[in-house]
Every structure is written in structure tokens, then in C-alpha cells.
């Protein structure tokens, strides 16, 4: 091989493993899923036997049948995202600007939960919010919740669980963008007659928008498709779309409906995210 030729080919050779991986484990499964989503049961076949009939009405049937879970997925995901943002922003702000020499320790503490299994941490919330936990008894004592009210197996618990599980994904991008802000721009704002609140509104918040956008996306997207939190912390009336897809696949063995729901969810998330990024105008930010 001549030297010039190898120089042209080299980048493609280097890209090859990545392409192969994506093709095998992303493109093929997606195509397979698309194929499955328009199948119908084979006449007279066993449970789980389907044939390709290009029945696009599968999508409409699946959506109408599960529109409640659909809406719930997005409402829960939005609630969890907003809650996570409300908790993570002050946290990231404090780490970026006020933590001093404790900065690195605090960052490690944010990542530390990842050393334990996601499932285990979610189950732990069952204990925390349970009858014997340290949340319910004090709330009962002060009359904030009634004697018969429980926190486990509620929509509230699902949202709290998701907020907790996705908090690091919100905090880290927020921290990264806050940390990049030159504190002197905030001083300059104060110098130019802006008080603390105005400085936050006019300088700090706009400059941290890339982090807000990244953090909310990293939280919202997995939260909308989540089923673990609803399965462990929820009840039959707080099921999300993820739970439906899970049971269609593994319990009812209704592959076409599960595949159609998966695609609908992906499309809905994609549309929402596109609208959101347009609105947030990240490309305007430095």
C-alpha cells in the first residue's frame, strides 16, 4: 500500500470498529423492531407467533389503549426533571463557587451512589418511605399526612425515586457549566448596579443555560422511558409506558404492540426534545 493511499484510508479504518458495533447493535435491532411493530398474530399459531402484514394500525391501537400511561410517563418525567433541577442547581452552584477545597470531595460524593446498584438504591427508597422509615412517622406526628396515608406504592414515590436516581445526571452538567463561568462577570454585574437576584437572572442563569439544557435532557429522556421506579415504588395506577412495554414483551408476549409503543415513545421524546432545544436556544450560547 502506498503511503498516500494509507493516509486516505486510515481514518476510515479507524472508524470501522465503531461502525460495525453500531450497525450490529443499533441499526439492526432498530430495523428488527420496526419490522416487528407492524406484524400480526399468525392465524392458528401459538402464542408469540407473528407474521409480517404491515399493519400500521398497530400504532394507533397501541396508543389509544395506553394513552393514560403515555401521559403519565411524560408528566412524571417532567415532574422529576423539575424537582431534580430545583435540587441540583443550588447544589451545583455551591460546589462551583462556594465549596473551596471541598470541591473535589463533594463531586465524588455526587458520583458515589453509582457504586451501588441502581436497583438496590431504588428498593432502598421503599424502606425510606415505608411505614417504619424515618419520613412517615414524623410527618404523621406533625399531622402533615393523615394516619391512613402511606407514601410507598404511590405516584409521589415514583417521582421521588426518579428524581433521586437521575439527580447526578442533572448536577454534573450544571456544575460543569457553572464552573466555567468567570466569577468576575458576576462581580462586574454587581459593580454595574445589579443586586444579587438581578445578577443571577441576568448573568449567572443565562451563562449556565447549556448546563440546564444538558442536565434536563439527561434527566428527562431516561425518566420518560423508565420503568424500574414505577415497578418498585408505584402501584397499578401509577404505571408508566416503560412498564407497559415490559409486560407486553415479557408477560403477554405481544411483540408488535411493545415495538409500536417503543417507537411512539422514541418519536414523542425526539419531538419534545427538539422543541425544547429550539426554545432554549442553546446555539445562541457561548
Amino acid at each position: 500500500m502506498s503511503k498516500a493511499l494509507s493516509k486516505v484510508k486510515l481514518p476510515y479504518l479507524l472508524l470501522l470498529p465503531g461502525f460495525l458495533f453500531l450497525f450490529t447493535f443499533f441499526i439492526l435491532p432498530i430495523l428488527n423492531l420496526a419490522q416487528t411493530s407492524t406484524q400480526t398474530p399468525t392465524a392458528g399459531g401459538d402464542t408469540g407467533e407473528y407474521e409480517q402484514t404491515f399493519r400500521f394500525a398497530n400504532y394507533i391501537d397501541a396508543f389509544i389503549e395506553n394513552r393514560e400511561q403515555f401521559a403519565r410517563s411524560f408528566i412524571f418525567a417532567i415532574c422529576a426533571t423539575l424537582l431534580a433541577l430545583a435540587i441540583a442547581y443550588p447544589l451545583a452552584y455551591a460546589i462551583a463557587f462556594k465549596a473551596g477545597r471541598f470541591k473535589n470531595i463533594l463531586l465524588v460524593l455526587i458520583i458515589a451512589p453509582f457504586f451501588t446498584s441502581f436497583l438496590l438504591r431504588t428498593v432502598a427508597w421503599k424502606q425510606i418511605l415505608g411505614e417504619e422509615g424515618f419520613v412517615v412517622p414524623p410527618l404523621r406526628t406533625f399531622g402533615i399526612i393523615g394516619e391512613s396515608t402511606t407514601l410507598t406504592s404511590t405516584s409521589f414515590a415514583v417521582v421521588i425515586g426518579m428524581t433521586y436516581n437521575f439527580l447526578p445526571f442533572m448536577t454534573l452538567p450544571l456544575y460543569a457549566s457553572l464552573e466555567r463561568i468567570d466569577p468576575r462577570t458576576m462581580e462586574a454585574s454587581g459593580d454595574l448596579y445589579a443586586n444579587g437576584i438581578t445578577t443571577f437572572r441576568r448573568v449567572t442563569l443565562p451563562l449556565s443555560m447549556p448546563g440546564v439544557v444538558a442536565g434536563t435532557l439527561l434527566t428527562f429522556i431516561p425518566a420518560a422511558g423508565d420503568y424500574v421506579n414505577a415497578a418498585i415504588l408505584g402501584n397499578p395506577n401509577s404505571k408508566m409506558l416503560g412498564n407497559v412495554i415490559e409486560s407486553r414483551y415479557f408477560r403477554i408476549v405481544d411483540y408488535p404492540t411493545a415495538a409500536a409503543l417503543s417507537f411512539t415513545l422514541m418519536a414523542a421524546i425526539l419531538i419534545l426534545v427538539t422543541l425544547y432545544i429550539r426554545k432554549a436556544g442553546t446555539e445562541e450560547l457561548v
Partner: protein
Amino acid sequence: MVDVSSATRGDLRLTRITKTYGDFTAVDDLSLTIPEGSFFALLGPSGCGKTTTLRMIAGLEEPTVGSIHLGTTDITTKRPYQRPINTVFQNYALFPHLTIFENIAFGLRRRGIKNVDADVNKVLDLVELPHLAQRKPTQLSGGQQQRIALARAIVNRPALLLLDEPLGALDLKLRRQMQIELKWIQREVGLTFVHVTHDQEEAMTMADTIAVMNEGGIEQMGSPADLYDNPKTAFVANFLGQSNLIKGRIEGTDGDNLVLDLYGQKISMPKSRSHAVDNSIFAGIRPEKFRISLVGTPTRGNVLTGGHIEEVSYIGVSTQYQVAMPWGQELMVFEQNDDGVPPFDKGDQVLICWEPNFTFALRGDEDAEAGTEVAPDDFDEDE
């Protein structure tokens, strides 16, 4: 919110200011009055407390002890946004998410001024960058950003404009140009400028009055010419330009002059230029005030004999000589190259002479090396 137009104006007075951080004293019992309308420079090496002083004036730090008055108003504990004072920050600190126009309008808008166009356009004209109004700061060169930072501050017509090493990030040529422009703008707008710098040349070019700071206090304050011609301490003598400091004794007086003994040689100098407290002194002479002549040629004024040329460096406009004296000291002499060729060679036996009036005298117990170890341009940007 501050209504700057009716806000207090007048001299800025710092009264017995001390600022400590734990065990470290950044500013030590400093008192200072900056007259309204002046171009005032705080000059000193890294860590001398000049930036801390500036930040206390801006309200970004609070003094541990002492008070700050603007005119008759005590502003010691006022928040930055409550002071009619604006700052040009060292790295400009422009708002990267706003256009140049909005950067400049920021202060006006915060004060609730509705129609900002005329004011903003006026300062954009003043800094000669009206065509950049709709750009973002990152699209500007360093020099342009510097001017916008200045425009953003002066558009508010503050009682006091603080400049924190404003030219530190610019290259030498641009810095020279901006020095002249800043001075011009100060005259044009008639505001009080307080300029913090470690660059003695910059301070001397621009300021009416310079306060030389060292170790949290003011060493000496005066006009650039005063400080240069008649420094009171070895630190000032060495930090502003170069000085030859020769150890000696006061032998007696002769009318308005003092007679000094420098290693057995007698010279004279005006009494008024001595800052000595007893007979022990350092006689100071700036290198360019010395004249060299070959042994045997007629001389005038003060003369030191017994030297020979140790080193010659030709630097175009002048030639620098190091003259080794019999007592082991090497004196620095700058000779203007009026006549072309360097007239002295290494090893020539020479006399050094100078006008007695150019001599200054410092206390004999001073550290003759104070202020020399660090070349002003080598400092860190931050304190």
C-alpha cells in the same frame, strides 16, 4: 439601585484601612485621599495590597478596620451595586452572552433608564468602535474588548472609575497606544480614575499622582516627576527606574548644601533632598544623571574618581556602562548616544561626575536592594 447623577461626588478618602485574611495582612493601616477629577495610580509589586485596596473601594471586599468616604458619604459597608463607582476589570469580565451594545447598556438598564441608545452610542463613538455594537465579546480582539470594558464603565458616569491592571493582557505596542488613549479619555470625560498597576512606566505615563505601595502600605505618594527625582525610600528609588545607591556619611553643611563623604570622596547635595535621619546615608543618583569622562579631563559638579569601565552595552538610544569603583561597587551609567560611537571602552580609567542637584539621600539603615529583585514585568497578574 443608585442614581449616579445625584449621588455623592467629591474626593475619595480612605481612613486607616486594614484588611487581613487570617494571619495575612494585605493592607496595613492605609490612609489615602484621591482628589476628584484626578488620574491616580496605585503602583506596586505583586502582593503589595494594591488590588485589595481597589476591591475595597469597589465594594468587592470589606475592610477589616477603617472607613471609606466618597465626599461626605460613608461607603465602607455599601454593596458594590449601591456605590457610584465602576470598575474596568483585569480580564475585562465582559458578559459573553450579551452583545457589545447590551454589555454597555447593562449598568444603565439596571438603574432603570429606559432610553439607553443615545448614551451607549456616544461611548461607542468615544472608544471608536460603533460598528461592533451587535457583536459578541468573543468576536473582539483583546484591545477592542479592553475598550468595551472601559465604555461599559464610563457610560454610567461614575464618581470614580477603577482600573485593575486594565492593560495587562495587551501586547506592548497596543499597551502604549491604550495608555495615551486612556489618558485622553480621562481628560475628555473628566472622571476620577484610580488605576492599579505594577508597571511603573504605565503609571508614570498616565497618572497625575502615583502612590507607590509596598507590603500593604504606601511608601511614597506624589507626581511621577517627584517620585522619580526625589524618592524617599530605597524601595521607591529602585522600583521606579534604576538607582545607584552609594553608602556614605554626612560630613557637614555648606550653606543650603550638605557635604557627604562617600568612601573618602567628598560630594555635595541640596539639604532639601535628604531623607536621612542621622549622619548615615545612602546617596542616590539616577544612572542617566551621571556623566563619564576620561581621567585628566576637566569636570564640573560632584566627581567620583578611581573607576574603570567594567561592561559596555550599546542599546541604540543610549549606551549603558557599568563602572567598577575602588570600594567594590559597580555603578550604572546611561549615556545618550548624541554623537554616534560609544566613546569609552572596557577597561578605560574614568571619572564620574554629575550635578549636585540631582543627588538624593536616603536613610543609611535602608536595604539598598529593596524593590530591585523583581523586574516589574515579571509579576503574576493576580495578587
